[in-house]
């Protein structure tokens, strides 16, 4: 049974259709990416999932039930706009947010210490929030959504504004949580992030669902018809019958194969003429799939 089900969900603000009849399911224990450029309706969709706003049409079910506030204790939510009480000490803040999720102070404190250790910010635990760097504050916010050990973790743009090192730490943590059996949903406008992390995705553009499904399955739908070659010597193999289109940049080339060609004939021809240091059949990236789907008018 899916842990999140959206059925033809629609949300209209004054004049703008923010979410237009979107449907998708999220299976338990998976990492799900909600993907789309800025302003495409990701945040609107997420807000409806946790009951901050109500859909104008369609239905949303969490844990197999229609929305009820009681179920929010099983959800950890990180909003896109981060907010912490500036004057509060980190540990007091975490205990307060933990208590709001129904924990007692002692448990909240214990778990907060554990998480701070895990994310390497133990030194800041007694400091006031305003004394910390932005990345640090983001980690604290991240911890605050996990203290009550939610089954479903929903994060809106969790990695935005983080340096690569910290982004990787949080990504790894999310993978760990997924491996523990929790369901993770996060949104991002950066397609490269989602590719490595997600088991399934939904791609939104201007409020419309463009693409949805398992990562493998989506990739399989698009042909592996491109080849990258790095070579020295004769470039005449670029006119091999398998090649539909080729771009030659001094020593390496990007080639589009004819439909149905697996590139092996081209490889054989290339080896005969030049010294090959790299030959790679490339999967299409999500970004390419996305651009193909929406016709290139992406303003992200």
């Amino acid at each position, binding site marked *: 049974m899916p842990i999140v089900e959206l059925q033809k969900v629609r949300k209209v603000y004054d004049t703008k259709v923010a979410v237009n009849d979107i449907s998708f399911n999220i299976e338990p224990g998976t990492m799900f990416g909600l993907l789309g450029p800025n302003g495409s309706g990701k945040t609107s969709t997420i807000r409806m999932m946790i009951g901050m706003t109500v859909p104008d049409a369609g239905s949303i079910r969490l844990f197999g039930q229609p929305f009820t*506030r009681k179920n929010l204790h099983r959800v950890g939510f990180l*909003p896109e706009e981060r*907010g912490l*009480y500036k004057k509060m000490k980190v540990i007091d803040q975490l205990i*307060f947010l933990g208590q709001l999720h129904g924990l007692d102070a002692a448990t909240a404190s214990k778990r907060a210490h554990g998480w701070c250790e895990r994310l390497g910010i133990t030194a800041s635990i007694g400091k006031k929030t305003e004394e910390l760097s932005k990345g640090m504050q983001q980690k604290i916010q991240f911890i605050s959504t996990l203290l009550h050990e939610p089954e479903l973790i929903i994060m809106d743009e969790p990695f935005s504004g983080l340096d690569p090192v910290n982004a990787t730490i949080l990504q790894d943590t999310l993978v760990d949580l997924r491996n523990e059996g929790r369901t993770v949903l996060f949104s991002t406008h950066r397609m490269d992030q989602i590719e490595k992390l997600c088991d399934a995705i939904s791609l939104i553009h201007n409020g419309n669902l463009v693409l949805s499904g398992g990562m493998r399955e989506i990739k399989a739908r698009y042909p592996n018809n491109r080849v990258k070659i790095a070579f020295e010597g004769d470039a005449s193999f670029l006119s091999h019958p398998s090649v539909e289109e080729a771009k030659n940049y001094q020593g390496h080339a990007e080639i589009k194969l004819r439909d149905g060609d697996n590139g092996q004939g081209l490889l054989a021809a290339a080896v005969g003429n030049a010294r090959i240091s790299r030959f790679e059949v490339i999967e299409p990236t999500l970004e390419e799939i996305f651009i193909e789907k929406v016709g290139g008018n992406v303003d992200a």
Partner: protein
Amino acid sequence: MHKVWLIAKREYLERVRTKAFLFSTILIPVLMGGGIIFEVVTSTQSNSTSHIAVVSQDQRLATDLQAELESSKDTQVFVDVISPPASGTRQELNDELADKSLDGYLWVTPPSQANALPTFAYTPRSTHDKALKATVDSALQTVLLHQRLTHEGMGASDVASLMQPLQVDTTQAGKAADSTSSYVATAILFLLMYFVIMLYGMNVARSIIEEKTSRVFEVLLATIRPEEMMAGKMLGVGSVGLTQVGIWLATALLLTATPVVSSMMGGAAHVSLSGTELVFFVVYFILGFLLYASVAAALGAMTNSEQELQQLNMFLVMPLAACFFAAGLVFSNPNSTFSVVMSLIPFCSPLLMYLRISLQMPPVWQIGLSIALMLATIYAIIWVASRIYRVGILMYGKKPTLPEVLRWLRYS
């Protein structure tokens, strides 16, 4: 309810722990106490050492004046009698004024004709010492009247009984009421509420705006309802104000309870409240504060910055000020239809129902109804404010127009 409590506790502790709170809480009573001590010290200095001389050919008049002045209750005066004066007396007295061993002298010049009054000239050391001059004047009046009456042939005991000050007692059916005291208590309640609402009601509004800019609200919305959040903030920030005012009032009560100060106040500013009245004072004050604080919360929900809030803050105290004007009419006729209706309007109840209670106990159902109406209004305002807030925060940016606010109320 547990979450309202958590929010309230956090707001309360965060504010109470600041240095600003500590300073203002301590500083105001210190200034208050310091002022009183200063007053006491300066007044005892000027009062106890008053020393004047009475110069007269008529020794009888001079000693009567001495007796009258020295028996004065308000101030302590030592009087020297010089009778009859010698030729150097005036010079001596002026010298004594100059070296400050004398505060003033009264020179009585005998009448030039029989039956005429003597003339009196008072020379003070400092013309600013109005209190002493007034004491001398009134003593002089009393003594002269006394003398004239005796002169007309009245016996000493008749004169004494005739000049006994008149005592008027005010009583009211059912209770020994002092309506001036009721009015003063209501005026104090009004001032207290006005002050506390202006100061701390605005804090409630500010804390809600602050929550908007810090965006913590969005984090909290995933766990709590907007109305829980509103109620928590209102209670937390409001309690800070009540704590501070409570500390100040307790200090003030302690100070006025000390014998020095109460004797200094001479009983004039004394407001006596019975146990029941005190309970109602506290109940109506707290409910009134919460009511106006919820209005402040609604104002905070509608605005995005302190500047916008400033333009609206008059709406906060206007109803209260209007009630205070109505208080005059209620005072003159506490049981008229007008008074009953006005005192049941939630925004006026705190002042007017309290005034009626202290004048003449209204029927219990009216008191119950006014409290119930106030509680219902507080709830309704919080409900509306939280709707406005929830939608406002999710569609931030521009200032809402009235039709938009009304439309927001329909969103759930």
